[in-house]
């Protein structure tokens, strides 16, 4: 693993002293939100860029991951002199509520001293955004220079822009959507069922046993991982090549490289992610439909926004295909807002927004100004 030059970051916790009211009707008493900052907030507090992370992401954008030791998930994009330039901007990323990386989630202790487990209330993308707003309030930031998010991060960015229109002046959405499609929900349901079918899940009460539903979570991750790639990408990377053997074994070992790769991806995921968090966060994504929240018309969601928008899709992304970004673009146009949209060509499928796509760097840098 290539080590990146250490970029000074601050990892902090915000402990809310009041309950977070949730879309589901419940509230979360005094939740904790973990966040990372990088760069310097100027005196006017107008140079902040907030990054929203994806499903299994976290707030370690540039700092090394505390469990895996790998560099932050977006060091390619964020840092001094990078497209999101921490010499100029104060970059913030907060771990979503429901997660297991520092913010309050199902693995956290509830007020009765036991882990929440499945007693944790079901949350929505908008609930995650309320947590982000709490961080902005705590930092005294009235209005962001820009809000940036890919995949589930893009959903949060759209939700924040729609529900808290005065809090950001620009919104950059990568490989995302304004609603989860039937296909998106279907893949998530496969993942959740895999977790819940694992006897070690124990209705979510596995924390005391020292071992969670690792098999189930691993299968969930394997299925999801396929949706993040493209057929061409898989063919190029693995083809039908065999794993460390000359011939097929006529058994059910991981004969093919792709099998071995997926098993590794699934297994290593269980080292860093909580199965219940996976259930809750995928549920939040499935419930996401920004138009539904605003009378069924997506353009209405942006009626009070005055921000600039930029949407980017990738031609090989079949999880959140270009048509989804177009739908958002047309709604923003109908709302009379300045909007840019481009479909970039990249071979990596949905994951393209995290990988080496020089055209993306230029768009991000240009849009942020």
């Amino acid at each position, binding site marked *: 693993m290539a080590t990146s030059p250490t970029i000074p970051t601050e990892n902090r916790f915000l402990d809310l002293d009041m309950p977070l009211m949730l879309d589901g009707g419940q509230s979360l008493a005094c939740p904790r939100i973990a966040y990372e900052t990088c760069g310097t907030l100027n005196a006017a507090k107008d140079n902040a860029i907030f990054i929203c992370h994806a499903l299994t992401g976290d707030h370690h954008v540039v700092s090394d991951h505390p469990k895996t030791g790998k560099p932050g998930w977006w060091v390619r994009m964020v840092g001094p002199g990078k497209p999101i330039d921490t010499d100029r901007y104060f970059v913030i990323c907060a771990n979503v509520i429901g997660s297991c990386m520092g913010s309050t989630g199902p693995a956290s202790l509830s007020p009765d001293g036991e882990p929440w487990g499945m007693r944790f209330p079901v949350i929505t993308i908008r609930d995650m955004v309320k947590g982000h707003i709490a961080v902005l309030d705590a930092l005294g930031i009235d209005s962001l220079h820009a809000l940036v998010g890919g995949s589930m991060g893009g959903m949060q960015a759209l939700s924040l822009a729609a529900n808290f229109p005065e809090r950001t002046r620009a919104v950059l959405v990568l490989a995302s959507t304004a609603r989860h499609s039937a296909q998106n929900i279907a893949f998530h349901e496969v993942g959740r069922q895999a977790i819940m079918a694992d006897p070690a899940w124990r209705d979510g009460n596995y924390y005391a046993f020292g071992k969670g539903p690792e098999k189930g979570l691993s299968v969930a991750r394997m299925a999801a991982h396929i949706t993040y790639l493209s057929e061409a990408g898989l063919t190029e990377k693995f083809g039908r090549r065999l794993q460390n053997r000359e011939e097929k074994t006529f058994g059910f070992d991981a004969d093919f490289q792709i099998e071995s790769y997926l098993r590794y991806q699934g297994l290593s995921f269980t080292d860093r992610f909580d199965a219940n968090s996976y259930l809750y966060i995928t549920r939040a994504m499935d419930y996401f439909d920004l138009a539904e929240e605003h009378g069924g018309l997506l353009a209405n969601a942006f009626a009070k926004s005055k921000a600039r928008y930029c949407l980017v899709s990738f031609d090989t992304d079949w999880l959140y295909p270009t048509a989804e970004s177009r739908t958002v673009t047309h709604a923003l146009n109908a709302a009379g807002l300045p909007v*840019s*949209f481009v479909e970039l060509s990249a071979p990596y499928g949905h994951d393209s927004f995290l990988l080496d796509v020089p055209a993306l760097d230029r768009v991000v840098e240009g849009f942020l100004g």
Partner: protein
Amino acid sequence: MNAAHAASLRPDLAVIAENVSPGSSVLDVGCGDGTLMQALQAGQGCATRGMEIDAANVGACVARGLSVIQGDADKDLAFYPDKSVDYAILSQTLQTTMRPDKVLDELLRIGRKAFVSFPNFAHWRVRVSLMWNGRMPVTRLLPVGWYETPNIHHLTINDFRALVKERGITVEGRWFLSGDQNCSAAAANFRAEHAVFLLSRGN
């Protein structure tokens, strides 16, 4: 438009830039790399937005800080609200669309006024080439062979005049260019390499 900005633009774009009211809102359909949009923003203080079919061009526009969406004039204009800009601009793009007449309708629905520029297929060089060689012309303004040209609906200035008359569209201004020289309306269909029209639906 100050002279420095206008001078660096392609002649038809310079005509458009000189005749857009300062501070107006503009949609540039087929905006390319955003040259006209940037000139209108910097020189005229216009609020600009663009549409462009080529991803690399859109990327270049966004990198310049312009608001441009990747889209196709034949399909994606439908998503713009009525009278949402002062000017809809279509420069050197009409002849590349599937249905130029419908695109024209869309421009005049979205814009209070529309600028349209196009190469004149009845220019004398084109006529001479056809007459003497019997081949589809390849000229300075039509530099690509028939089989790979994006220009699928060649038209002449007189064709365009007939279309706007038939559709009851008001011509508020027209400019005929040979190189960067103006030529008269009377001789335009023979002498002009390209034309710029400013159109409206009247009242």
